[in-house]
């Protein structure tokens, strides 16, 4: 038995061919591939989770802002002025949006105001109807769904992004001034 390992191509005690030389490279290839994928997956998930957290904070801030803004529409369709400002608040953290004098970056890369879904519910009935809640969401409804991209592109069907379709979302009860404009039609202002 002691001499056996000096001879090549000899079955060892476990019934395998002796010698380890050829296997090291294969093992390294397989091992490093697995390890690289595990690390890539961790970064991928982590970065998407981080972006989701930023979006979550953005919708909360925008819904909070909307809850304080004077509501002039008589219906659950907000005025275009308010819609634009809520969308800007979500994307840029500023109701005035990104301007030439005050250029701002979207909170998450590639997020646009078209991705922001702003919905209002009215409460009460008959002639006593007031704004009830202000909800801001990413994607869903009339908004364009937003794709949150990871760091690495998709490879062999491995998840590289997810679609924000109505989530994250935040709802605040209305706490501002309701000043309905009688010139607003049922379709909005």
């Amino acid at each position, binding site marked *: 038995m002691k001499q056996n390992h000096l001879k090549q191509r000899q079955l060892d005690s476990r019934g395998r061919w002796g010698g380890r030389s050829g296997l090291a490279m294969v093992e390294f290839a397989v091992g490093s591939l697995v390890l690289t994928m595990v690390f890539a997956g961790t970064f991928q998930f982590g970065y998407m989770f981080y972006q989701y957290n930023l979006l979550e*904070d953005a919708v909360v*801030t925008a819904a909070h802002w909307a809850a*304080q803004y004077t509501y*002039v529409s008589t219906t659950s369709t907000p005025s275009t002025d308010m819609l634009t400002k809520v969308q800007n608040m979500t994307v840029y*953290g500023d109701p005035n949006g990104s301007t030439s004098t005050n250029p701002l970056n979207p909170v998450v890369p590639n997020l646009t105001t078209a991705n922001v879904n702003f919905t209002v519910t009215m409460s009460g009935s008959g002639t006593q109807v007031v704004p009830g809640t202000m909800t801001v969401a990413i994607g869903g409804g009339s908004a364009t769904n937003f794709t949150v991209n990871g760091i690495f592109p998709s490879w062999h069907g491995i998840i590289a992004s997810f679609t924000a379709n109505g989530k994250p979302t935040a709802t605040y009860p209305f706490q501002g*001034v309701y000043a309905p404009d009688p010139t607003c039609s049922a379709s909005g202002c």
Partner: protein
Amino acid sequence: MQKIRSRRHITSGGNVLVESALILLAFFGLLIGTFDFGQFLYVHQSLVERVRYAARWAATSGAANGATADQVRNMVLYNQSTSPGSGTPTYFNLTASNVTVTYTTDTVCFTSGAQDSLFKRVTIQVSGYQYVILSPYISGTYTGPTITVDQPIYQDFSSPTTMCS
């Protein structure tokens, strides 16, 4: 036979040394890199939480008492609105110059007949914070990502009715 065995043993020993050196280098690189990344995430999230807390304070208690930008900055640095005096360590060694507090008042003129009004908000920004990285070859200090937190405060009802005319 004994001779051959011992020579083989020595050759193998050399390989093990080189192999261990390579593997340990990679292993400790990954290990320290993980520590660095974990520390970065921890400090970053701590700073974000502190800034959010300061923004909430500015919008509630601070707004009720007319807090200044300096007081909000102290909330970020020391978790209290008054400065505890020089020499007191700040949160993760932030410096006052890292923290920018801006009060913004948006004037809105409604064409619909609603009363023209002022909407106040606060923006806290932490920029230029230096993170320490210990990993070999990339060790040093790095400027972290800018943290921006916006917080609506209130609608200013005391605004004059003629401001938009």
